[in-house]
């Protein structure tokens, strides 16, 4: 299996996708959560808006973004119609960039949820700690950076686990968005596994890839869980 170019593509895509997806989702989710935490007036409405994508299935998200990103009638065409003739945004059909369109759609879908988790975490932080820090002379950014965000550690933990499993099991999103294409340029191990096991009847390669996915998840999650749980037992 390791000699297959397609497997190469699949797992490098998974790495690219997971890293970009998780990092950007966390950053955007945290940023939105901090914004909403500033006690702004329409928070309820905004929170609902950001959370709304989560109510959609990945299939719907994938299909919607397939249209938005399509160079013939999506963003590229709109901007060109606005007069920027040379504007190109063809990531969806560009084999080099297609995996990043999956990242975009995935972030759109999941960052609202991440925001909700972070917002809950922010609300759970004792106000007195923030007061203590401001008496200690910390500026607002410092308070967020040194006090609040480290205090969100358990939330980060949940967020990372949730996003990681979304990333590794991502399948429906890719199928709906560009069907692992163009060619197989946005293949990930999950679509690879499906193709080999069910379309081509090569159960051996299919199960090998599934086993590798399992091992990757174990390799990442188990040490993480272990360290988290162990440090809690110290109390």
């Amino acid at each position, binding site marked *: 299996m390791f*000699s*297959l*170019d*397609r497997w190469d593509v699949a797992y490098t895509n998974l790495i690219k996708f997971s890293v970009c997806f998780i990092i950007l989702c966390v950053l955007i989710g945290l940023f939105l959560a901090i914004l909403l935490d500033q006690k702004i007036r329409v928070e309820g409405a905004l929170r609902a808006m950001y959370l709304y994508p989560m109510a959609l299935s990945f299939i719907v998200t994938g299909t919607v973004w*397939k249209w938005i990103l*399509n*160079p*013939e*009638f999506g963003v590229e065409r709109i901007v060109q119609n606005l007069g920027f003739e040379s504007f190109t945004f*063809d990531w*969806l*059909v560009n*084999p080099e960039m*297609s995996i990043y369109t999956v990242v975009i759609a995935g972030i759109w879908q999941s960052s609202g949820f991440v925001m909700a988790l972070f917002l809950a975490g922010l609300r759970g932080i004792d106000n007195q700690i923030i007061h203590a820090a401001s008496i200690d002379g910390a500026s607002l950014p410092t308070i967020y950076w040194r006090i609040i965000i480290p205090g969100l550690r358990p939330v980060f933990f949940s967020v990372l686990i949730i996003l990681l499993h979304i990333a590794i099991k991502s399948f429906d999103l890719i199928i709906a968005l*560009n*069907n692992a*294409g*163009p*060619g*197989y*340029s946005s293949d990930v191990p999950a679509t690879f596994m499906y*193709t*080999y096991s*069910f*379309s*081509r*009847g*090569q159960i*051996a*390669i299919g199960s090998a890839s599934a086993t590798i996915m399992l091992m990757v998840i174990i390799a990442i999650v188990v040490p993480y869980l272990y360290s988290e749980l162990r440090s809690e037992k110290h109390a």
Partner: protein
Amino acid sequence: MKSKNNIQRIVKSLVLASTLGLSSVVSAGEVEVLHFWTSGGEAKSAAALKELLEAKGHQWRDFAVAGGGGDAAMTVLKSRAVAGNPPTAAQVKGPSIQEWGNEGVLANVSAVAAEGDWDNLLPSVVANVMKYEGDYVAAPVNVHRVNWLWANPAVFEQAGAALPNTWDEFFDAADKIKAAGLIPFAHGGQPWQDFTVFESIVLGTGGADLYNKVFVELDEASMKSDGMKKSFEILRRLNDYTDAGSPGRDWNVATGMVIEGKAAMQVMGDWAKGEFTNAGKMPGKDFVCMAAPGTADAFTFNIDSFIFFDQSDSGARDAQNALAATIMEPEFQQVFNVAKGSIPARLNMPREPFDACALTSMDDFVKTAETGGLVPSVAHGMAAYSAVAGAMSDVVTKFFNSDMSAEDAVAAYVTNVMEAKASL
């Protein structure tokens, strides 16, 4: 007294009934048919088969599994077969029939075939696909021709281009169409569509001879031949004549572009015809169907068929035989194929119900069956095992979607195919 009379009457009627039962040629049974004809037109075709069978007094238990272009159905079928409870018949085609034969679970319907004279009604290439170790185990429902070029004559006229018969003519015409500001080649950039185009290119460049060696016999030397390299180069050139939106596009959307006159040509199987006729277009006038460039003497077939599983119950066996016979009857072949746009698998059918494209197809089918130009479509799982075909498709689609050189493509093709072949 009265009760005794009653008993006698019952006994009499029982005797009568059993006598009648013995005297009838077939007893009524039930067939359970696994298929994936779930979309509108296809479901109608399945219903036609059901009606014909029920007219013969058998019961039809529908077992339709939608999704994945048959992948889901195959998964269900495998689990049913492994559980020792396969359906009576299942929609399986191409080399997969041999795979099922190897499992030793198929029923021999040679008796029905002999009675129906299948050997003479089917071209031998087709008959061979339906046989396992010399016995019929499957019945074909239709024949699709894959190497079609669909063209919009209005676009050609507008660009001052001529319909192409070779790939050189194709590119001449394409240049003119492109200069006229239209899309020369409507294409849906999905792996199976890339592969569909590629098999027609190989057939057009190297003829049936190279096609068979590369796709059916998996001959390594032929895979490395100039013909293959040239085929890859043609595929690369096609890239310049498609539009930016082509990757990921569904085939029927690409057909729609030809119908609307946005694009000039599409290489696609004869199922595309339904799109034209549904849009109210007339063959020969509003659209042209012709063999893909350089493949007028060849015919890549894609045959849907049903395989039959061993049945222990004699009633079910009778019903199964009836199903096999019904499938090959002219009545079903005609109704089904007119609806689906394909042509009947059996020869010598009445021509009247079919349109011009289908008639061309039928003529070429007979002709190529004799000349040896009749070849199985590799992109549609008729030529090679799915693992091997998948390996080929991977290289083709990768090549089409990157700037890989034709030499590298040939090398990767040989490696991939040989590995997949070895893994069988």
